């Protein structure tokens, strides 16, 4: 695999704006809506019976994959529509981009309890949990894909756009021949990242239960949890094996072929040295049946679609290369819609505030302590992750043979969602002193270290050979070598890895800090535990307070600390 920087999208904006305040208010009123619904949520929610028979595994694997696929389809559709709207209209851009920026730094898992409770009052139980899982995965997948698509659209080289205009490509043809192909590479890489991240949330959603409310879903996640609860080692092994098998199969039969196929969408005008290879794609490409289908069905079909859409768009204006709509005044309909939305937001915000007024001082104290404790836990896990991934990443990245050997292994290990292993972790750690604390940090570590490791490997293999030689010739001591070469060269990679890692760690707190294991509940101090316990006890004011506090804290840390480091990385430590 070529070095790839898993970079979060960080538009250069000031730390905090009025827009951010509005967006947080909007989130608050949405949360209020959920809580409002949740008040009439059933007090007892019966969970599904999970069979530990190995014969059930294929079915559970299918269910889990189905949820992932549904959420991914939703994310892709959303990305295309939202990204296109933001790129095509300046008015839309002004609203949509800041919104995206906040949404992608919000700890998504904190929404899970509210969404689950809210949906379970309006929908039948099973359906509500299914839908909540899909919505949750969607919210974890959509933002980076959307941002990537938007960014691709707005970086299309001017001459390619001008060629589209001068050759009079209508909007559909332009989308098909220019915009989508140009965005394909970024969209596919981000899809792979999103998909991998999605497993984490799926597993969390499948095993979520508090008190008498059991929201679990039949799937690989709940299978593993049940197996761990029962201490059934063969079942645990079987579950993990099934999960890895599903991930490897998807990689071999979906993502690798797609990547190999998409290699032609690279913009570079030079042939790549090492194009991504896929045996399955080669097999398909040589298939007689597919070739015939392409010629007899796919060809005429696209031809028909192209001409039908062309006929519809006939006479429509061919866009000039320079102009972008939306500079002018908003239409009356948009104004009315905006006003209604603003009113709804204001109403929701006020109601949310009223609900928060009912939260007692000790409860607020709990929330504050929780945020602080979780912050410490996240920091510890990040530090531990850095301590081992930086030396290991440099060792792997600087050594081609080692890299070729270890990369596939690391990828498979990293692709196993940490949340799936959490019940197993508990089985091993819960009996130790400070067991849950240990397990929580461990879960955060498991969920986040890979981003760091991948980034460090990518950074280490991007260090120019000349610099390595120079460092060797200067006979610098190991300490000096780290100070003058490795740390500065890796800095941007560590920062981008760290941003993603800390986001993941905050998310993990929701499932890590309160667990029900083998019929017993255990909790540590932490905002995740506060949210989970408030969900179980039906303390909706505190649920809202905890969720909001978590969101604001994370957005704040992202906007100040991480963005500051990111700025330094981009200006001081860029390799040109």
């Amino acid at each position, binding site marked *: 695999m070529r070095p790839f920087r898993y970079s979060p999208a960080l538009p250069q904006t000031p730390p905090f704006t009025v827009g951010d305040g509005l967006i947080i208010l909007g989130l608050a009123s949405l949360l209020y809506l959920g809580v409002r619904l949740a008040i009439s949520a059933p007090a007892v929610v019966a969970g599904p019976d999970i069979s530990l028979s190995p014969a059930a595994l294929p079915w559970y694997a299918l269910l889990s994959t189905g949820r992932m696929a549904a959420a991914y389809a939703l994310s892709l559709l959303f990305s295309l529509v939202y990204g296109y709207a933001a790129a095509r209209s300046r008015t839309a851009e002004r609203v949509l981009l800041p919104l995206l920026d906040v949404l992608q730094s919000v700890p998504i898992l904190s929404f899970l309890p509210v969404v689950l409770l809210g949906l379970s009052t309006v929908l039948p139980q099973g359906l509500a949990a299914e839908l909540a899982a899909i919505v949750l995965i969607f919210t974890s997948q959509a933002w980076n894909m959307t941002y990537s698509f938007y960014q691709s659209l707005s970086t299309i080289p001017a*001459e*390619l756009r*001008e060629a589209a*205009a001068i*050759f*009079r490509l209508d909007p559909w*043809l332009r989308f098909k021949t*220019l915009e989508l192909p140009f965005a394909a590479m970024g969209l596919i890489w981000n899809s792979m990242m999103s998909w991998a991240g999605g497993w984490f949330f799926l597993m969390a959603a499948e095993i979520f239960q508090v008190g008498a409310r059991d929201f679990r879903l039949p799937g690989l996640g709940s299978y593993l949890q049940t197996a761990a609860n029962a201490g059934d080692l063969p079942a645990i092994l079987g579950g993990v094996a099934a999960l890895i098998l599903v991930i490897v199969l998807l990689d071999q039969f979906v993502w690798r072929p797609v990547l190999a196929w998409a290699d*032609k969408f690279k913009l570079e005008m030079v042939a790549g040295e090492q194009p991504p290879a896929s045996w399955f794609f080669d097999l398909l490409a040589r298939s007689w049946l597919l070739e015939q289908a392409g010629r007899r069905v796919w060809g005429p079909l696209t031809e028909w679609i192209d001409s039908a859409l062309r006929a519809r768009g006939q006479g429509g204006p061919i866009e000039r290369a320079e102009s972008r709509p939306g500079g002018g005044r908003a239409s009356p309909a948009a104004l009315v819609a905006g006003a209604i939305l603003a009113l709804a937001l204001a109403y929701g915000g006020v109601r949310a505030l009223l609900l928060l007024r009912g939260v007692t001082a000790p409860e607020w104290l709990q929330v504050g302590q929780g945020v602080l404790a979780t912050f410490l836990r996240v920091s510890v896990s990040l530090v531990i992750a850095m301590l081992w991934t930086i030396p290991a990443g440099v060792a792997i990245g600087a050594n081609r043979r080692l890299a070729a050997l270890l990369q596939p292994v690391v990828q498979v290990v990293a692709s196993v969602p940490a949340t799936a292993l959490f019940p197993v972790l508990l089985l091993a750690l819960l009996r130790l002193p400070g067991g849950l604390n240990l397990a929580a940090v461990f879960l955060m570590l498991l969920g986040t270290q890979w981003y760091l490791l991948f980034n460090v490997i990518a950074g280490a293999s991007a260090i120019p050979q000349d610099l390595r030689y120079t460092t060797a010739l200067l006979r610098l001591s190991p300490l000096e070598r780290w100070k003058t070469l490795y740390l500065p060269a890796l800095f941007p990679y560590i920062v981008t890895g760290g941003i993603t890692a800390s986001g993941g760690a905050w998310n993990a707190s929701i499932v890590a800090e309160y667990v029900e294991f083998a019929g017993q509940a255990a909790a540590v101090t932490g905002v995740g535990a506060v949210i989970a316990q408030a969900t179980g006890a039906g303390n909706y004011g505190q649920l809202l307070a905890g969720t909001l506090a978590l969101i604001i804290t994370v957005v704040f840390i992202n906007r100040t600390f991480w963005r500051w480091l990111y700025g330094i990385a981009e200006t001081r430590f860029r390799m040109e």
Partner: protein
Amino acid sequence: MPAQLNANGGSLLSVENVTKAYGRAPRRFVALQDINLSIRAGEFVGLLGPSGCGKSTLLRIIAGLNPPTSGQVLYRGEPVAGVNPHATIVFQTFALYPWLTVLENVEVALKARGVVRAERRPRSLKLIDTVGLDGFESAYPRELSGGMRQKVGFARAMAVEPELLCLDEPFSALDVLSAEALRGELLELWTSKAIPTQAILMVTHNIEEAVLMADRIVVMDKDPGRVVTALPVRLRHPRQRKDTAFQALVDKVYAAVAGRTEPEAAVSGTAPGQPGATEKLPAARINALAGLMERLNADSGQADLYRLAAELKLELDDLLPIVEAAELLGFAQVAEGDIRLTPLGQTFADASILARKEIIAGRILRQPTVRWVYETLLRDNDQRIAEAYVLDRLRDEFGEYAQAQLDTAINWARYAEIFAFDDDTGELYLEK
């Protein structure tokens, strides 16, 4: 101004008082000012000028890609609104879709015009054949050389049978041999009337190329972009570069492009931000300037600019800023396409490094931008000021070119050890 510029009657296209400006009042930048130009059927017009003179912008306005701020473009007497369906462009960077094969790249132009599949294929194949790419139909652009890619660009442009073919520096991204071959092939298609094209407009910064191909050369200058003159080319095709008539015309065009700088006093101008224009710093590095001075000094202090460019293997766009810098500092004078060292220039070329720094320091402090930065630094308490502040002030004067102006000023001042820039803090500071 020659009569052809305002030709009426049989003109295919006419540009009337076209002005293009970006931004608003204090930061308004005029890319094109009051352009008048007409192109007759059967004519090959070369549009020549230094970079930044807006020639490519003019080409896009003519093709209808960009609207002018004021004025209008008439095509066959009708105002052009939106992309002109009778015009097409061949781009400098080819602008091929890398994910489409050669055939698909040509076909998509026909598809967009609603040509049915059955007709599209043979027409595209024939065009690919015409440009000599048969056998490469299923290749992707990245598998082709630059020259072959541009052939695809031409084939695609011809697919839509344009009346007006606009060429935007179509040969400048190619290697010398491919460019020459492709020029010959285009000229042959054009002079033998093998293509239904009525007129060609070619933007270029290569003087020889313009003299080789065009029937008329329109010369533009920058700040603001405007047409300064037009020269007819009455040589018969095929033209020979070695001909004395050809060479004489090249020299004449060179003089028109490069030889119009004014005496020092007239151009220095006021400090940035003050009323009145401020002279711009040419984007030249002092080291390149020193190299030019040494070269001229070794060559009896004088050279023909065009030949100098050829010998140094520099494009016009690369050489002109250095020549401008030499004039600005009083090291050289340009007249009739020749550059001549002044006594000061000669002293500079002979001087030691330290003496050179002193000469440069003395000369650049007369330049308003450098002097303004220097004086601002002197007045400051700790003699450090933020780059952002300086840039902000310069932007009022130079708009989008502020950063480039500051970069040049810093490069010169660093050489002269007047002031420098601290990248870590983003501050300019006075050298002790």
